């Protein structure tokens, strides 16, 4: 590992805050980490937009990865434009770009001042929560492509995927907020109107009393007919499937309470229970909105189309023509640039392909392909440009098939399982419904015999008071709060049910590449005769001549400032390189290439030969994410662990040491193998939590009881899963699991409390003398106390765990 230079003070890039390299890139006494960042600074400086840097410290986005010049050429294509634009006429063009990089008020400032950078832009408006910018352009003055390039030049590269073209992302469900607003309005007013009745309005003022009652009646109608709609639809749906869900008793309670109250008001017996009824609806809706809000921003349902680029360069008569992906036909020749994805299966016709299949197979090192070989879709080219001849359409390629197969598995296996593992809340609530029904019947029978006049008051008040709202609230509020806390820590769960699943997991399966290790960094160690600084320089200079990823990594590892002349450079593909560096003959490469003897060795190594003398070799090993060893140590005690890897066995010893002797380590795992392993565990009664990142894990993630996808950035593509965790947060996984487990205890505690409330209420109800006052005190106070307990305890716990 390169030892960090502790003597020199680390300088931060003025633009993005990354540590600057040794050679200074400066401009106006400001340090930058790369030319890209410096360029952005210059652009902003020219347009007098340096306020950007005053709002937040180092707000920029690192520019170290350079973009290809013609990347947005496809935006000139008429067909693609039509799909992207939201409005267009002779004067104006409206377009919305998704910019995942938006993260602070500086971004906001810069993007809303876009008109200063591009004359064709009339205005731009940022929606921060959606990370979108709406841009209004002058028709003819500028093009979509130019705007996209302007955005890219200041570090905000628009993310455009095929998914965007097909459909707009669903709008936020506003109707539930309306329903909540109306329920709140009615609930509040009914409470006020009910006070005179409870405080004992003078019997002489009957006229006034009936006015209050009728106002309450009127206010309850919109709640019954509009605000409570979600409960009716949900319970109706479940009844159609012959299941009793938790919404059914609520809907029943709302309707019964209304009928009973309406009857009381019309016949002039009493004031009814309108306040209780509207209160239930209000609190329940509030809980539901809170739950929805937590994961609105993330889309969990993504398919392969969001993974692929939107367009690709097709070579026709020596010209590059950007073509939308669905228009690619077998027989076309595609030009794939560095860092681009191969969208369809094809035959390599030109260039040298180093294809990074880490996303598909988990193999961390790029695969070399020669002209004439078949390349599969889903790989990423690293190095120079290549040309491929398409043999299969995008929709029929290996990658999409893999995806579709997963989908089939999903339908077949998981459905069955899901119906089995109904959340214990729903289970409890089902019993709850039956218990309430039987109490009601018993009461009815009792009063039928003893005093038929009290039958209906008693039975209806049982339904009113025994509404499971407190039970349900304890669930929704705790879950909602936990989801919110986890989301704040960049661990996003698909639904509340997932919390329960996380808490139940018994076996944790890790993928190696990209999950435990990072793909961007490798540890390089040297074994053999010590190299002098001069020799290291020579090696670095030679390695820098090659475009092979290993050579590049080595050159970077040994990077020196002094220049070394290289002559007679020769590369033997897939074997090694040789050449003269400052007149010394150097040979770098595989064991066979350098020494002539094929030696069995695990791991990836570059052997070094200088002037016909073998010095030693550089060993490449995986770089584990920070704090991963620590996490594994903590998990080791409580869970059974496994690691599945598509890679070779080079890391076996290292991993075994980290995970302990009991852990299972499997290498050379194909996607199907991973899936089968999970199934195997499940057959032995394990609840499996699978943590993976790539498409190669997609099947296993779906099969497991809880699949967690690791993403470098939450906005990046991830395979469909139950949860998404940001890579940096992976080390805190054990804390997250702990919180999910505590979630269950909190819910159970508040369940007990709400049952106590219910028993008190039922005590009055079965006797047929539940007064509206008792109901009005009992129902909101139970809801409110549950709300406080669940919210308070889960937040307190999170604070203690420093989440």
């Amino acid at each position: 590992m390169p030892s960090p230079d502790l003597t020199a003070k680390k300088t931060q890039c003025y633009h993005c805050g990354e540590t600057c390299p040794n050679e200074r890139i400066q401009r106006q006494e400001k340090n930058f980490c790369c030319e890209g960042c410096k360029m952005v600074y210059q652009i902003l400086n020219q347009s007098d937009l340096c306020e950007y840097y005053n709002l937040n410290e180092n707000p920029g986005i690192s520019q170290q990865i350079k973009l290809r010049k013609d990347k947005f050429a496809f935006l000139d294509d008429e067909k693609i434009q039509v799909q992207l634009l939201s409005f267009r006429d002779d004067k104006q063009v409206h377009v919305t770009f998704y910019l995942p990089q938006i993260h602070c008020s500086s971004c906001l400032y810069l993007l809303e001042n876009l008109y200063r950078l591009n004359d064709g832009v009339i205005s731009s408006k940022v929606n921060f929560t959606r990370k979108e910018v709406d841009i209004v352009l002058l028709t003819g003055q500028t093009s979509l492509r130019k705007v996209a390039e302007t955005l890219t030049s200041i570090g905000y590269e628009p993310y455009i995927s095929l998914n965007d073209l097909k459909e707009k992302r669903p709008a936020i469900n506003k109707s539930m907020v309306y329903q909540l607003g109306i329920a709140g309005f009615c609930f509040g007013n009914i409470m006020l109107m009910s006070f005179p009745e409870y405080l004992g309005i003078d019997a002489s003022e009957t006229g006034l009393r009936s006015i209050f009652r009728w106002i309450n009646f009127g206010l309850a109608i919109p709640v019954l007919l509009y605000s409570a709609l979600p409960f009716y639809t949900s319970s109706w749906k479940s009844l159609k499937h012959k299941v009793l869900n938790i919404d059914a008793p609520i809907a029943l309670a709302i309707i019964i309470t209304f009928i009973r109250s309406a009857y009381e008001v019309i016949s002039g017996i009493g004031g009814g229970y309108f306040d209780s009824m509207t209160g239930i609806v209000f609190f329940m809706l509030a809980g539901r909105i809170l739950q929805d809000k937590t994961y609105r921003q993330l889309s969990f349902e993504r398919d392969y189309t969001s993974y692929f680029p939107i367009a690709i360069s097709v070579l026709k008569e020596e010209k590059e023509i950007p073509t939308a992906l669905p228009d690619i036909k077998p027989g076309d020749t595609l030009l794939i640039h560095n860092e681009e994805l191969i969208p369809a299966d094809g035959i390599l016709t030109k260039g040298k392909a180093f294809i990074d299949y880490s996303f598909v197979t988990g193999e961390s090192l790029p695969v070399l392909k020669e002209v004439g070989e078949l390349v599969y879709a889903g790989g990423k080219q690293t190095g120079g440009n290549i040309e491929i001849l398409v043999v299969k359409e995008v929709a029929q390629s290996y990658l999409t098939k893999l995806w579709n197969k997963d989908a089939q598995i999903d339908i077949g296996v998981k459905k069955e399982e899901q119906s089995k593992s109904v959340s214990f809340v729903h289970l409890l609530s089902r019993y709850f419904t039956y218990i309430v029904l039987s109490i009601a019947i018993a009461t009815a029978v009792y009063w039928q015999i003893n005093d038929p006049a009290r039958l209906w008051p008693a039975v209806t008040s049982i339904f009113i008071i025994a509404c499971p709202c407190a039970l349900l609230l304890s669930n929704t509020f705790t879950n909602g709060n936990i989801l919110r806390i986890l989301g704040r820590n960049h661990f996003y769960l698909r639904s509340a049910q997932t919390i329960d699943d996380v808490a139940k997991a018994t076996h944790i399966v890790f993928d190696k590449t990209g999950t435990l290790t990072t793909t961007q960094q490798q540890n390089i160690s040297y074994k053999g005769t010590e190299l002098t600084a001069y020799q290291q320089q020579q090696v670095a200079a030679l390695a820098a001549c090659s475009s092979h990823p290993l050579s590049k990594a080595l050159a970077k590892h040994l990077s020196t400032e002094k220049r070394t002349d290289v002559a007679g450079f020769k590369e033997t593909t897939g074997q090694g390189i040789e050449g003269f560096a400052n007149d010394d003959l150097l040979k770098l490469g595989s064991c066979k290439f350098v020494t002539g003897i094929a030696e069995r060795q695990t791991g990836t190594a570059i052997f070094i030969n200088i002037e016909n003398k073998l010095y030693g070799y550089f060993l490449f090993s995986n770089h584990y994410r920070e704090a991963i060893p620590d996490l594994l140590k903590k998990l080791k005690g409580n869970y059974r662990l496994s690691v599945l890897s598509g890679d070779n066995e080079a890391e076996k010893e290292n991993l075994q040491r980290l995970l302990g002797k009991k852990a299972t380590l499997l290498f050379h795992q194909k996607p199907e193998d991973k899936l089968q392993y999970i199934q195997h565990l499940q057959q032995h009664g394990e609840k499996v939590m699978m943590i993976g990142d790539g498409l190669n894990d997609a099947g296993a993630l779906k099969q497991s009881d809880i699949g967690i996808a690791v993403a470098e950035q939450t906005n990046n593509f991830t395979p469909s899963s139950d949860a998404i965790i940001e890579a940096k947060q992976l080390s805190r996984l054990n804390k997250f699991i702990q919180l999910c487990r505590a979630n269950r205890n909190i819910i159970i505690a508040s369940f007990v409390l709400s049952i106590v409330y219910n028993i008190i209420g039922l005590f009055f109800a079965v006797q047929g003398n539940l007064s509206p006052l008792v109901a009005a005190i009992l129902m909101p106070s139970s809801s409110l106390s549950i709300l406080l307990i669940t919210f308070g305890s889960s937040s307190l716990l999170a604070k203690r765990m420093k989440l």
Partner: protein
Amino acid sequence: MSVIIILLIASISVAAIFLIAFLWGVKSGQFEDEYSPPSRILFDDKPSSSTKTK
């Protein structure tokens, strides 16, 4: 007694105005982005720079 009725009408209509304001706010998207408007107000639009743009 009739005073109470007038007060009732007044109080409910005031509450109704707030309800309508809330519904309008939701409809016009004021609750969709809670971050940008409060930050936007803090940006100083320097007159010197705005005159600079042609």
